[in-house]
């Protein structure tokens, strides 16, 4: 990094000018013991739950256990220089992180400090990491879609702005891939994205950053990273920090999408902190408040109405609603969704995308299990055209699943059953989609329309993907007006249906695949 000397002296000049000394009273205590990132502090009898405590050398901690004669605090960051007898000061503030558009395109740690070597972040606004979620009065129902660009998600488990949709599955089933595709697809939509990486390898985080950069999606994204080498306390607070950054956009009447990757590791970090603080362990050794840990976080993802936005911005923004959509990720062990944390998060969220390793290994990627995946509120937010055309696909897949067991008796089946099986196989094939290649609404609609109208029926199963690809290319070069019209209006009517039909007929006679 190069240092500009004039810049430095200017900063010093400004600092000297606004130099200001306060003689304030504060509460003080002494460190009794430090171990594993936990400090027991004697004194500070007036400390608040969750208050920031200042240790020597500008190290901060968070008061978590308030006991009769002592306070148990987690130290955020390195704790090797802290020893018994050190002075601890109360700051009277809850932990805060910088928020604002200045953070977009940056990689920060749980405290909002940059870790991407791109200089300081001059964000004037800060926000406490723990905030109460919007109440009933401030909320508005979810009725606008978040397009993930994935056919299987947008057609079968639609996500609305302000919704919480869980992505759940075993390791190596493509959970992060679904989330990253959703972020990439927000490129020109104005939806700001926050990707919170908890307990991941630093190399995985670097890879995500590089992929987002490659697809020009980093400029609308904030990455909050608490990697596996960070302390458990940093991993525990990372989602709350990310949420505070997302709430900033929600509260000024914009739309934001936040991905928590993943909350299982955050629960592990919290379990570690809790056990070290000697809180009694419960089921799977998690503390008693692990449900509240996730519910208070996910409840902050919401859509708020125009009045609330106007109130929060002191009347500067009028007539706009704000939203924060959450895509929490949970990793299951051997497909066990009835473990403690998965059941908790399933019950908190408004639906789940269930990914299965069997499907993944069979080459169906994204490996979404259409039967177990649901979206409880997304239907109201789905675009009209996808809602209309997606219904047929859902039905075909449901029927296929029922009949799939009979597929080995193919020769003994009647024509109607055979036809359903054929259709199901082709729809399953059609739901496959490569990573980092999100589709526009019009392209998706064209694929779904083709499936419903039986255009795939005479295509060999292994040719379905090339057929679809060729069809999209053909439509893009020869019928661009139709795609533009669909993307613009998002509506489905006889006119659109007739035009799509003629496009597909045209492709069948003139196209090559």
């Amino acid at each position, binding site marked *: 990094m190069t240092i500009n000397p004039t810049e*430095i002296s200017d*900063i*010093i000049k400004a*600092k*000297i000018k606004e*130099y*200001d*000394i*306060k*003689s304030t*009273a*504060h*509460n*003080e*205590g002494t460190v*009794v013991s430090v171990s594993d990132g936990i400090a*027991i*502090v*004697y*004194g*500070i*009898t*007036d400390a608040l739950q969750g208050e920031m405590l200042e240790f020597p050398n*500008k190290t901060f901690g968070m008061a978590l256990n308030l*006991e*009769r*004669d*002592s306070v148990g605090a987690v130290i955020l960051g390195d704790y090797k220089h802290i020893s018994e007898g050190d002075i601890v*000061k109360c700051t009277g503030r809850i932990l805060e992180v910088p928020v604002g558009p200045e953070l977009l395109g940056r990689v920060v740690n749980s405290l909002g400090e940059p870790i991407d070597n791109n200089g300081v972040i001059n964000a004037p606004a800060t926000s406490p990491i723990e905030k109460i979620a919007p109440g009933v009065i401030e909320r508005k129902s979810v009725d606008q879609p978040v397009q993930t660009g994935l056919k299987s998600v947008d057609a079968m488990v639609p996500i609305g702005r302000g919704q919480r949709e869980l992505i759940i599955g075993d390791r190596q089933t493509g959970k992060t891939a679904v989330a990253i595709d959703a972020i990439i697809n927000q490129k020109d939509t104005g939806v700001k994205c926050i990707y919170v990486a908890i307990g991941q390898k630093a190399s995985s985080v670097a890879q995500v950053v590089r992929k987002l950069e490659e697809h020009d999606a980093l400029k609308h994204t904030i990455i909050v990273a608490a990697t596996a080498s960070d302390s458990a306390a940093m991993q525990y607070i990372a989602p709350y920090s990310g949420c505070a950054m997302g709430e900033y956009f929600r509260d000024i009447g914009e739309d934001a999408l936040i991905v928590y990757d993943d909350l299982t590791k955050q629960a592990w970090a919290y379990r570690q902190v809790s056990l070290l603080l000697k809180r009694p362990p419960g089921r799977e050794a998690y503390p008693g408040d692990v449900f509240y840990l996730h519910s208070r976080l996910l409840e902050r993802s919401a859509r708020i109405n125009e009045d609330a936005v106007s109130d929060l911005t002191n009347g500067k923004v009028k007539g706009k609603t704000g939203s924060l959509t959450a895509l929490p990720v949970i990793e299951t062990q051997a497909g066990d969704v009835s473990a403690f944390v998965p059941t908790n998060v399933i019950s908190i969220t408004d639906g789940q995308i269930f990914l299965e390793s069997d499907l993944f290994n069979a080459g169906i990627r994204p490996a979404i299990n259409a039967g177990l995946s649901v979206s409880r509120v997304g239907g109201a937010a789905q675009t009209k055209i996808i809602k209309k055309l997606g219904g047929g696909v859902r039905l075909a897949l449901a029927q296929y699943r029922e009949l799939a067991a009979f597929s080995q008796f193919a020769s003994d089946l009647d024509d109607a059953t055979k036809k359903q099986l054929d259709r199901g196989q082709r729809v399953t094939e059609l739901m496959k989609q490569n990573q980092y290649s999100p589709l526009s609404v019009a392209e998706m609609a064209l694929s779904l329309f083709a499936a419903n109208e039986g255009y795939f029926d005479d295509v060999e199963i292994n040719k379905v993907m090339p057929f679809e690809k060729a069809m999209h290319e053909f439509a893009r070069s020869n019928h661009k007006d139709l795609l533009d019209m669909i993307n613009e209006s998002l509506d489905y009517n006889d006119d659109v249906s007739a035009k799509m039909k003629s496009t597909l007929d045209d492709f069948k006679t003139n196209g090559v695949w």
Partner: protein
Amino acid sequence: MSDNYTYSRPYGEAAFKLALEDNVIEQWSSNLKILAQVTVDKDIKAVIADPKISQAECSKLLCSFLDNSDDKNSFNFINLLLDNKRVFYLKEISDIFEDMKSNHNNVCIIKVETSRELGSDQINTLIELFKKKYNSEIEIEQTINEDLLAGIKVKVNDEVIDLSLQNRFNQIKQQLII
């Protein structure tokens, strides 16, 4: 350390209530102070911890340090502590007793840190100021700390009012760090 206070609190409170009933607060206060000093001594600690020496002998030894060694309550108190294996918490018990005593007498102990010795008129001004602030009698404990350079640092319980030059320099240092 913090746990020790939690364990010692009931003993300190009980001792104070007993002293208050019998109106012998000062006597208990000095006894506890002596015992607190005695029990931190290495040799005494070894004697108490020695399994060969009976509890009766230990209590006799501890009582011998007291001014009024034949006081029944003091004797029983020491025995109780030995029974419950809390005898090494006498320092904390004494602290809690002193806290309760100053609370009872409406006395506020103020720890003043300065770089140089304060004059008597300066101390009187401080006493007047804090009398108004805390609405109680003031007792000042003065310590000299040359690191402060100049100014004054006042500590009341956990609350610290730092008006020293050292603190000002620290603040400037932090503001100038980019």
